[in-house]
């Protein structure tokens, strides 16, 4: 066991954990941040996606020991003063969800994309989102949500930090 200092949603968190543990398990079990979901354990489905220093990362295959000093953003960290991130708003407006289990991961992949590329083309959206699985088949609506939010997402200060 080792004390690891993490920056999660702009807050310093100290966790006692073995370095080999996955970020996903530490987020969910130690920090009670359950927005990131377990879906496959092999980085294939994207349900566990969070941002590490602004880049989408699969928390299920990310060792927590490798994250000291890095900024981690989970879906819980997107809201600002009770206001949703524009992409969260866009998911609601586009009806881009069914069972919703994949949606936090979708949103984090999307926030990562819009941060880097505020006005992605459709092929760019597909490329960035290809690693996120939705078994309910909401892909066209997720694309619609991303298009709706593109341009406005970058405007929110600190969005997707």
């Amino acid at each position: 066991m080792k004390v690891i200092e993490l920056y999660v949603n702009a807050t310093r968190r100290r966790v006692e954990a073995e370095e080999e543990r996955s970020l996903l398990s530490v987020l969910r079990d130690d920090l009670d941040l359950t927005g990131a979901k377990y879906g496959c354990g092999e980085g294939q489905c994207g349900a566990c996606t969070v941002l590490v220093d602004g880049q989408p990362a699969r928390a299920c295959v990310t060792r927590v020991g490798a994250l000291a000093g890095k900024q981690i953003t989970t879906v819980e960290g997107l809201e600002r003063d009770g206001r949703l991130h524009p992409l969260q708003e866009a998911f609601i407006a586009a009806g881009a969800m069914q069972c919703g289990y994949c949606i936090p991961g979708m949103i984090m992949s999307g926030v990562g994309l819009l941060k880097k590329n505020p006005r992605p083309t459709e092929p760019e959206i597909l490329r960035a989102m290809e690693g996120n699985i939705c078994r309910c088949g909401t892909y066209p609506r997720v694309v619609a949500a991303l298009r709706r939010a593109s341009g406005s997402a970058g405007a929110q200060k600190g969005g997707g930090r």
Partner: protein
Amino acid sequence: MNDGVDQVGFEPERYELAAEPAYLFEPSGPAELPRRDFLKALGGGILIVLTVKGAAAQQESGGGRRRGSGEPPPKEIGAWLHIAEDGAVTAYTGKVEVGQDIRTSLAQVVAEELRLPLAAVRLVMGDTGLTPYDAGTFGSLTTRVMSPQLRKAAAAARELLVGLAAEKAGADRSALVVADGKITHPPTQQSFGFGQLTNGQKLVQTIGEDVPLTPHGAWRVAGKAAPKVNGREIVTGRHRYTSDLKRPGMLHGKVLRPAAFGATLLSVDTGEAEGMAGVTVVRDGNFVGVAAPGEQLAARALAAIRAEWKTTPQPSRKNLFDYLKSQPDGARAPAGAGDARPPVVGEAAQLRLEGRYTVAYIAHAPLEPRAAVAEWDGDSLTVWTGTQRPFGVRGELAEAFRLPESRVRVIVPDTGSGYGGKHTGEAAVEAARLAKAAGRPVRLVWTREEEFTWAYFRPAGVIEIRSGANRDGTITAWECDNYNSGSAGLRPVYAIAQQRNEFHQVSSPLRQGSYRALASTANHFAREVHIDELAQSLKLDPLAFRLKNLKDERLRAVLEAAARAFGWGGAESSPGRGRGIAGGFEKGGYVANCAEVAVDRASGRIKVVRVVTAFECGAIVNPDGLKNQVEGAIIQGLGGALFEAVDFEDGRILNPRFSRYRVPRFSDAPALETVLVDRPDLASAGAGECPIVALAPALSNAIFDAAGTRLRSLPLIPEGLKA
């Protein structure tokens, strides 16, 4: 025609419900407890209890197995609805939310009858301690059966409130207006809130089903697009699925899985695991599992258990279809009264055609795997789990632990999907067994590999069709034999004078069960491809040929609507492009698909360019939710149509991961166009299942049109189109 749609009971091919329990635990302790009185907890206000008669009330929990509980079968109650003294409106239903968005559409109909905004209605769903008995969320029955029940309860509540207001106002009922949670008497400008009217009341009114409902033309909330009522919880990650729940002192569970299907445990050494601090090890019959304060520790303890298994030879995928066909018929089930055994396709037919079609096993692969949190309080058990049958799982738990059902409560948080794959309570039973041993709550979340291996699969099958037709394009005779995959949708939708349709139930190498639309997908695939082959042989347009042989006006309407939106029969398709059409009905819905594919000859790659779906399921309750269901069925259907297949050998699954089992991803999604055909004159039917059934044949027919290759096996192109 359309048998089964009006049967509310279980269909025989829901194999998973007839299975024996996975574990037979040793008995321990007697149990008897007074029934909990949940109604008392509701407090004051008005409670409307809707009683129902007929098939829905006679359904059994536990899927026909009901050993040991000793309680009379439930319940004639369909739904209940409570209006509290603060005016809060809560509807209670045993149905569960697994992504089909009934939490929204049911709230819509309640809001409609009570003249409330949607946000004012709360739904309590799938909690055996709080909601009326329900057989399960499957068969597209929620909209067809539960929605009218809740509407009636809400309408009765409204009428009761109007009566109370009339008394208070000293006015005639007909002079009162109900709107926005208030009842007003315009002449005197008196106004009463719902809460105010219920104040001091403790009314329980039992009503029958003969309640007048708001006619479709007067709908204000229902019939309109409504966003998911708990959408904000989803996009913020605040919604707690079962796998997100935590209980004080909770442990994490893991279960030892057999080395292969059909394996028996010869010996097990749990010594090392038992020596680990904080670890509880359970060995009970063939059940071996661990519980530990952390998931990693639990995994480590499980890995430390040495087990020896005796395996027996098991069929493999490579000889699956021969295996299915080589067995003697278990139960031969003619699909309808008019079906006779002797062959009906005679020498007289001007054209005779035979075809053999196969479908692979596929996995539901719900993104949230099976999960449960179990907690004991003395001899009472509470389990949170994602299942489509909370009362059925309560029965499984009661049976496993020899408890009366009144001591078991199953709560289903809105769940990370099901698609027919979560009718059973494996994780619930396992978590409860571990929690019992550990004396603490236990959470058990199946790994993806466990979900891909130890859940049940959509049945594989062989379907053989022989048909006869006249040169003028009339289908004269039809014989269809389905081996193993099921009888749903087996009878042709076309008006054919002579028919013989049989489902041959044989032994399945893999555990199989319900999947969205049951065998209808397989049977529609075989039939609609065969129809295309007939049209090809007769040199007739596939749409015109279908319409010529069709009497069903609703099916005709969706075929024509899809063809119109698609531009069927327009300009010749360009090289490498092909078009296909297919249609059918299931579970009260009617669907037609037109698809366009692009084939790259050199690489064999096939891209689905465009899919048009026309769908009709009676009067539409939530157009946007409906469109979402239709689109989702098409996207999910692409997987089973094009590349999904469970690979297995010697009792082991060879592709139990997303890296080896390909599911549809963003780039697979074609351009989608959905035409919703609204029929306000017809009762609303569900839409979670039917829209998936016609996609695969439409794609196969489009690939034939593009490349001249007739594909008769699902998945069609797991590795692209072979030369």
